[in-house]
């Protein structure tokens, strides 16, 4: 250890460190020695005192006015610095606002994109509906306008004598429609339901809405020797027709 300290003091590291001429590694080593060994610390302090004394011997009166020039420059720099900070703060605020608005717009954009998807889907559904409706209307036109179409007048049986309906059947195009033009009033809890027996199977054609459906042609599933029925069912419709409640049958 003694040797280590002796070798260190014999080297020129401390002198070079004093003048700020050591590299990073040498600086670290020197600072470690100064911190660890009081002898090195003492030698370093002495060196510093000697340097100060020696250098002070060379002091020359600084020129007049130099102090004012220096202090003026420093206070100007301080002002510039504070100007810079003010600018930096302003810039930070602008940046923050920008980031905030960017996030706001991003959020809004996401929202709009979602809405756009919903609207697009709605448009697609509407298109599909329209296409189906158009198809239906085209078929209705074909049926009504075709010379091969048979027109069948239907009247209700005893249970509904006032019932009037017209069926249009086109065996060539294999399309059939029915228009129920008049239905006797039913109590609140009952409704009319249409059925078709096609190839031995009973198909539910749905509940006839008394007023809305008067002007409408309802499509009937087409089959040779099919039979359509109108029955009175509990409100909301039934899963299977109540045979005892048949008010009309349509053979087409």
């Amino acid at each position, binding site marked *: 250890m003694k040797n280590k300290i002796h070798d260190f003091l014999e080297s020129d590291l401390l002198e070079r460190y004093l*003048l700020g001429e050591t590299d990073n590694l040498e600086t670290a080593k020197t600072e470690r020695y100064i911190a660890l060994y009081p002898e090195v610390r003492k030698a370093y302090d002495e060196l510093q005192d000697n340097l100060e004394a020696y250098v002070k011997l060379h*002091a020359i*009166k600084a020129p007049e006015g130099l102090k004012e020039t220096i202090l003026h420059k420093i206070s100007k720099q301080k002002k510039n610095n504070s100007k810079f900070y003010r600018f930096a703060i302003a810039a930070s605020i602008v940046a923050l606002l920008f980031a905030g608005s960017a996030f706001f717009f991003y959020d809004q954009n996401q929202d709009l994109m979602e809405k756009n998807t919903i609207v697009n889907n709605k448009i697609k559904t509407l298109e599909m509906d329209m296409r189906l409706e158009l198809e239906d209307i085209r078929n209705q036109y074909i049926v009504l306008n075709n010379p091969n179409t048979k027109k069948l007048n239907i009247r209700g049986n005893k249970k509904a004598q006032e019932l009037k309906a017209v069926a249009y059947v086109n065996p060539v195009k294999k399309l059939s429609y029915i228009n129920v033009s008049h239905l006797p009033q039913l109590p609140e809890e009952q409704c009319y339901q249409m059925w078709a027996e096609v190839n031995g199977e009973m198909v539910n054609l749905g509940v006839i809405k008394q007023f809305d459906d008067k002007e409408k042609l309802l499509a009937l599933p087409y089959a040779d020797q099919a039979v359509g029925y109108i029955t009175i069912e509990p409100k909301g419709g039934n899963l299977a027709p109540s045979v005892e409640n048949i008010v009309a049958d349509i053979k087409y």
Partner: protein
Amino acid sequence: MSKLLENHIVELLEERNEKAMSLLYDNYADTLFGVAYKVVKDEELAQDVVQESFIKIWKKSDSYDASKAKLFTWLFRITRNTAIDKLRSVSTKTDKEIQIDVSDVYNVGEQSIRPEFLDVKEHLDKIEEKYRIVLEALFFEGMTQQEASEELDIPLGTIKSRLKIGLREMRKIYGAPALVLFIISML
């Protein structure tokens, strides 16, 4: 420089108080101007060096670490390096060689020297010239020990020992009490 005043200046520097610079100037400007002059050997350049150094000192004040160096050592390093850089940039411009001229110690700025430094020559004379040359080369010419060895044609080992002995002789000249008196007289 009393320790108390030094601490006060360091505290003001830490607070970024401009008063620190005024105090630093009052207490160190002549010495630092002397350092700058010794290196660049031109009054105007030396003024520039002192100006630049003080601005560096102000800017770097938060990097000063009192546990690593005395305030004067730190100020000296900054001024010396600024002066050496200045001299190098001027030399590259004028392609002038840096030369060691021992006689400068006596010729330079003697007219503007403070009365209390009138015995400088006497003091310096007490340091043997062979040591003084080495101290000059290392402290003011910005030479490394290797460069001084080549420039002065003295073996590296001799440079090292002369630096040590030269600094030791300083103590012999002033002695501890004399040094204290000397420093007090400068405040």
